[in-house]
């Protein structure tokens, strides 16, 4: 048995040296679904010859997993480029001084509402926050939603707002309404029996299966249900007449030793080619920059007007922090 342990130790040491020698690859932390992002990163490798070593987020650690990881690693940065599936978490990293500025050609093609004025992060290919409803039991209109949300809510679902895009949604509400009104609203939802679930995909499952008639989710989860032939419809959530577009975001991590390769990847991700590809993928992301809209699928094209009507995200870091502090006091007693 001891001999086997020795063997294991030797093997481990060998692997240590192997990994220490492998430092030429560009390390990308990617919170976007690996199903879609892996292909794009491979294409980048093929086009540029730059080797990419991705680390994907999982539902097990949520999108906050990689953001927290970058914060924990700040003294020994491992990541060169962060591809986040939302923008406010990335903006919070800028607030902590963990991002480097870069304003390349990709930065210029993205509207100002979706990027950092200093160029520390840039948004691209967005999801839309939507009401999802079961078409067999609910007719989805803004009037019906208003009526439903004014009554008992045990047939309505929302994801736990501690993480993910629901946290971004709450941060926007905090900005639009103020924290007091947000707290009052959420407490009212809870008192009237809203079903709080683990994530947006659970909300989609609850509504698609008919367990709930209405829920808050994102377009990517909604399209999963559509592709599975489930009876669902969606309507954008509006706050102060503005839509909640949650873009992917890309940023270069401070302390990167591969700055040139990192810039090349940022330019590639912010290109029209990638935005188009993400719009054609199963998750149907909405292109934010200029693209040939004829090549964008119809079910994404219908959301095009909301790009002009989107809630600006570039200055919400303080609201996110306020919201998160309050939610922690609610959930982590």
């Amino acid at each position, binding site marked *: 048995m001891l001999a086997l342990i020795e063997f294991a130790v030797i093997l481990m040491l060998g692997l240590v040296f192997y990994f220490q020698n492998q430092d030429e690859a560009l*390390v990308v932390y990617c919170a976007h679904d690996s199903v879609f992002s892996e292909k794009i990163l491979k294409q980048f490798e093929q086009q540029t010859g730059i080797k990419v070593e991705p680390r994907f987020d*999982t539902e097990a650690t949520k999108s906050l997993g990689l953001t927290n990881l970058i914060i*924990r690693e700040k003294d020994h940065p491992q990541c060169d480029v962060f591809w986040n599936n939302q923008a406010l978490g990335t903006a919070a990293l800028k607030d902590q001084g963990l991002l480097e500025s870069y304003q390349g050609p990709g930065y210029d093609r993205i509207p100002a509402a979706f990027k950092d004025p200093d160029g520390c992060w840039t948004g691209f290919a967005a999801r839309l926050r939507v009401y999802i409803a079961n078409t067999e039991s609910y007719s989805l209109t803004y009037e019906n939603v208003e009526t439903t949300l004014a009554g008992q809510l045990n047939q309505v679902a929302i994801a736990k707002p*501690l993480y993910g895009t629901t946290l971004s949604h709450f941060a926007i509400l905090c900005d639009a309404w103020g924290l007091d009104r947000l707290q009052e609203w959420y407490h009212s939802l809870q008192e009237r029996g809203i079903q709080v679930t683990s994530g947006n995909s659970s909300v989609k499952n609850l509504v698609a299966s008919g367990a709930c008639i209405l829920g808050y989710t994102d377009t990517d989860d909604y399209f999963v249900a559509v592709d599975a032939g489930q009876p669902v419809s969606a309507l954008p959530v509006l706050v102060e007449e503005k839509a909640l577009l949650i873009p992917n975001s890309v940023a270069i991590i401070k302390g990167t030793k591969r700055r040139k390769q990192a810039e090349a990847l940022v330019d590639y991700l912010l290109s029209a080619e990638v935005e188009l590809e993400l719009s054609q993928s199963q*998750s149907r992301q909405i292109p934010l920059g200029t693209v040939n809209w004829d090549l964008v699928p119809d079910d994404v094209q219908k959301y095009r007007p909301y790009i002009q009507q989107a809630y600006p995200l570039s200055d919400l870091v303080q609201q996110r922090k306020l919201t998160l502090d309050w939610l922690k006091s609610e959930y982590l007693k």
Partner: protein
Amino acid sequence: MSLTTICGVSVLRSLIISLTGVYLCQSLSSLIDRTESRISFFLWLLILAPLLVPELIVGYIWSLLTTQLIHYPALAEFVYSMLVLMRVVPAGIICYHMTVRPQISAEADFIRQSASTAGTAISRFSAQWNFFIRKTLVRIFPVWSLLFLLAFQEFEMASLLYMNSWTVWIFDAQAGGVPVSETLGYLVGPLLIEFVILAGVLYLLRILEQRPFYLQSPGRTVSRRLRPLLAGCYLALATGCVILLPLVMLGWGGLLSLKSVLQNRLQMMGTLEECAWGLGYAATSGIAAWGLATIFFNRNQSGFVKFLGLVCCVPGLCGSLTLSLVIASLFLTREGAWLYGTPVPVMIGFVLYLLPRAVFLKLFFQRRNADDALFLAHLMNQSNCPQQAENGGRLLWLTHGRMQYWAVVVLAFWVYWDVTISSILAPHSGMTSAVRLYGLMHYGQTSVLSAICLISFCIPALLGIILLPVVRKLWIRFSSQSELNQFV
């Protein structure tokens, strides 16, 4: 809900699950005893099969099936508890069969029962209590403890089914950005509960080591008529809920899309590479954890070393999430940073995660091993006559080696399907297939998921079977003198 309340809920749930589990283990054991040896192999296979279906797959399938239960929290709690029960009972039944023999002979028990009506001293409460401890508690307490710990630590199914559990609470705290140091403060309560139970088992085993055992068949128990019936019903339910349902829901789609996955070179290579990493972590950490358990809890080891072993078990009892976060923090200090991004943190994480489980298995094996028979087999193995030595090696394999092999396989299996430790500690290019599967589940990629699941499942299963004769051969050849020394 506060952490204290959630801990209370988790304890209550684990208590009910573990007590029910112990009763089921006894029932299943009596069913095995009644069955002919030829059929009992298949019965064992059926009982243990739920262990081979990964938690994340069971959780995922049932999260889809139980969406309607959101309006019936009590029913949802019942379904979750039943699933946890079905997942932990196979581990319990292994332990039940390996645990110590009762210290009361059948004859003594018969005399007690006959004399108890006559108002003799043997019918007093203290005497009855002694009988209960030496006949029943000695056998069920370690099994109950194992079932309690496994149920109490459960995370992935609780998370997927959105159940209240202290492990999910800790996860939420982390996702909310609570510093690791604060998380450690939250852990004191749950850890204390686990530690008390583990200390109880060790105390009991230590007391029992000093008492004599009677040569008797440990398996034969007088069983009531209803027990085999109950065991049969349980087996049917467990097979249906934990094996057939997930296999049917994933298997069909898997076969349909297997061809497309096999043709997708990028996906296939990625899957194979991740399987290889998973197997590498699983095999090395399984062997290392087993080896450490052997070193720390060898019967001739000093009390201090055993205490040290117990201390090393504490990190594994914290749950995979906290363990990996603490290890990640340690490797992000100036001293540990050079090893960060290598497989060392993930290996350490897995070994520490497995150690309490390995110790449990080790202690059960130790109690089960017949010293005199083992000693004779070792002597035979040392014989100058090659044929005798080989026969000794074969005997050693049958009495000792085979069980160790399967113990390591079970430990490796737990690692292979772990998501949390891999996703936090594994190096970027050394991720395991379980992490990819978890992502696919979230995004509803059912057909691709099924095919990759099938591949990821078949590779280790086949390898486990293929390696058995190879390890057997090596074992017989290299059974060493050092193992003989512990008997001298």
